[in-house]
């Protein structure tokens, strides 16, 4: 417990360094990733990250020593080359972007393996710490690395703030940007450069495979909560930063599995899994686009449809008698398209809403229920008439089509339908243009 306290209060200098580094990285990746995801460039980062390996190897050949800045420069150069490869293949050949990215990933990384094995075979070579770039070793981050990542993150944030308007425009309406005379290509290149820089800066912390996760996951998670770009950027940065912090704290505090104490829990995967957890929460619980909200909407709609079908069935059952206040039984209504697997529930719900009253196994429409039923039937028949008169659909075919639409016709559309059918419908509920199943039976 005291260990945890020490961590959270940032007393351990080493952890403080790592925490700052991963959090800053998360924030920067969230910002850049948002644009990448919106521009459908999410997986470019994957190609850039994998291309870093041959870059590192070439840097090692050139410098002849393992130096952090040289490695980063090599990785960045190779990453830009891979991004350019993808862009050229996409623009100039019939090969699509996804195939170009996959080829860049496999080909460049294969080249990297070839080069790194050659380094390994040299008498002085020992893979030159390349592994920590491939799989990431956040725990071995030292002060200067964290400062570097921090500086990169700050630069990225500044550039995003400066280019905000330009990036926004090209992300949402590139054609308009071009037409307005914005240098869309240069802005695209700027975004690509940002993705490259962010990816390469993240390599030492989380590794080749997982750095793309930091670009994609916080941004996709943020997208669930909002339709506005500033909010999305803020949320993505927040999610990214929080994942970095949480992952680092977890990796430092979780008890290591017995027997491999020396290794501890790796930071990179934990950071990514924290981001994934935030994503999962967003996917489920986001207020508008989330799956739960979607489910609630669907259930509500289904219930409303069931009640409206019940009302329409009742209306059409009572219509021949001309007395809409008369009693009817549930069995009277079975024939309509309202057939559903839980036949009792709509009655209960309609009663709870005060649309029908039940007494001794029989039901009656209340005044409110009669009005609602008339509205539903009216929508149904107006749409049927519209289909018959304006879409030339045979009268015996329109019932099913109208049945789907009557529930979702907004008042404006109903008004429009009335206007179009002027002179063809009497005020109030028009007569059904086809034989009613209920009345045919009775």
């Amino acid at each position, binding site marked *: 417990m005291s260990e945890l306290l020490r961590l959270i209060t940032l007393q351990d200098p080493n952890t403080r360094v790592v925490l700052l580094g991963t959090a800053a990285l998360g924030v920067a990746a969230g910002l850049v990733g948002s644009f990448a*995801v919106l521009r*459908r460039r*999410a*997986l470019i980062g*994957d190609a850039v990250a*994998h291309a870093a390996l041959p870059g590192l190897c070439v840097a090692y050949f050139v410098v002849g020593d393992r130096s952090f800045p040289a490695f980063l420069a090599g990785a960045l150069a190779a990453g830009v080359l891979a991004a350019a490869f993808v862009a*050229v*293949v996409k623009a*100039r*050949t*019939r*090969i*699509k972007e*996804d*195939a170009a*990215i*996959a*080829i*860049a*990933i*496999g*080909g460049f*990384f*294969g*080249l*990297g*393996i*070839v*080069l790194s*094995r*050659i380094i390994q*075979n040299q008498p002085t070579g020992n893979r030159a710490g390349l*592994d920590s770039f*491939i*799989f990431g070793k956040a725990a071995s981050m030292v002060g200067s690395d964290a400062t570097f990542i921090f500086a990169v993150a700050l630069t990225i944030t500044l550039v995003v703030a400066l280019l905000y308007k330009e990036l926004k425009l090209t992300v949402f309406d590139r054609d308009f940007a071009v037409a307005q005379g914005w240098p869309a290509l240069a802005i695209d290149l700027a975004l690509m450069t940002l993705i490259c820089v962010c990816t390469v800066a993240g390599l030492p912390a989380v590794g080749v*495979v*997982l750095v*793309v*996760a930091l670009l*994609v*996951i916080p*941004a*996709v998670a943020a*997208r669930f909560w909002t339709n506005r770009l500033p909010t999305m950027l803020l949320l993505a940065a927040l999610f990214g930063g929080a994942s970095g912090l949480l992952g680092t704290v977890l990796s430092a505090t979780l008890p290591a*599995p*017995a*027997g*491999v104490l020396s*290794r501890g*829990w*790796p930071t990179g*995967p*934990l950071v*990514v*899994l924290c981001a*994934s957890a935030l*994503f999962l929460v967003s*996917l489920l619980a986001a207020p508008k*686009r989330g799956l739960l909200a*979607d489910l609630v909407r669907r259930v509500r709609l289904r219930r409303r449809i069931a009640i409206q079908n019940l009302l329409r069935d009742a209306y059409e059952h009572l219509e021949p008698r001309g007395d809409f206040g008369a009693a009817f039984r549930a069995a009277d209504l079975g024939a309509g398209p309202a057939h559903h697997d839980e036949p009792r529930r709509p009655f209960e719900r309609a009663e709870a809403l005060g649309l029908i009253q039940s007494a001794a196994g029989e039901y009656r429409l209340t005044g409110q229920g009669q009005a609602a039923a008339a509205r539903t039937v009216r929508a149904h028949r107006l749409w049927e008439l519209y289909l018959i008169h304006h879409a030339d659909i045979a009268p015996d075919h329109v019932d099913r089509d109208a049945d789907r639409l009557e529930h979702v016709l907004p008042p404006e559309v109903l008004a429009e339908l009335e206007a179009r059918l002027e002179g063809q419908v009497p005020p109030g509920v028009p007569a059904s243009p086809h034989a009613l199943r209920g009345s045919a039976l009775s």
Partner: protein
Amino acid sequence: MSFTIGQFLLADTSLFRLGSYGVRADDVWIVATAIACCVACGLVGCFLVLRRMALLGDAISHAILPGLALAFILTGTRSPVAMFAGALAVGVLTAVLSAGLNRFGKVSEDSALGVVFTTLFALGVLMITFAARDVDLDPGCVLYGLIEFTPFDTLSIGGLELPRAFVTLGAILALTLGLIVLFYKELKLVCFDPALATTLGISAAVVHYGLMTLVAATTVASFEAVGSILVIAMLVAPGATAHLLTDRLRTMLLLSALIAALSAVMGYALAVMLNTSVAGMIASVALGLFIVAVVFSPSQGLVAKALRQLRLGLRITREDLLGLLYRAHESEASAPLAHEHLLHRAHAPRSGRWVLALLKRQGLVADDPARGLVLTSRGLDEARAVVRGHRLWETYLATAVGKDPGRVHKPAHATEHFLSPTLQEKLSDELRAPSDPHGKQIP
């Protein structure tokens, strides 16, 4: 995917031996295994490239890590069957999860893949760390693969000692071939016209998920021998290369298989020469072949496209020059025409000079001491055709299309180069006009 210390020692001697260039039985097995793997990937890959599912191989081959770890943790052994089952299950799960995320979460396809496979890979690394107490499941090994070791892990079938990886990959190759032959028509239809396939009663979804399962199986069978990186490269690069070389699916499949086999053989030879990773080299060769196709493909290549553009540009300059000369000498008493003036009017100061020299050498244009540049009789014939096309099109635009006669020159100037003699005849028959809207005679 993991090796005991003894195998590592063996591996060291084998690496040493690979350095000396002789061909041994082991080399044959390694190449045969590589070919089986690459061809199987190359065949499936054609459909991935056409269906725009190229990144699925990438995602699946990364995501199977937790499947392997889970299989190991559950069974406690490194039994190939358990590993295969675990990896295949997670591979299919990757495909299904990302498709579900795309459909129900409205996340774009690439983002969905990115979320799913990185999450699964992170989970896999953690599980391996957890399971690492007594087994060397090495993530590095999953990435690079160790095809060099295939001859040491053998199976005995009917008294024959065959490398296990070769048997597995051979089986996968046979399965892939069989499925493609059996369902060729369905696959083709779903690739090129999914809507028609659906109306014909072929479920695009079934084919899609079948393809995903085949990709997962190929990936899982391959990565142990050759590493996931090689799988990613071979699933896409040969198919894409073949796609640049042909428009026919049958030829594409054949070419893709050939390119894959070529990559395997060349990659192995180069790796032995440089004493480096075979899998990495095969992937590099596949990338190299793709780049060669991008640059040099006869129909799609950058060079062919540039040549086509250059040839078109030169033809247009040539026809413009001829047309200008024709117009300059239409009226009898015209001033002598200087080189510079002509080139300036043709808007092609540099290429025009070159084209003019060529026209002179071909005997279409001559230098007349009195009148400057003139058309020879052969040159006149060609120039007449150009001007005729131009003026016919102007007339057509002005009369049949009803364009303002003041605005017909520019479009006609562009179209004159693309009017074939038959089209010119048709226009002339239809229009029956002796002169163009500007009153110039149509030759």
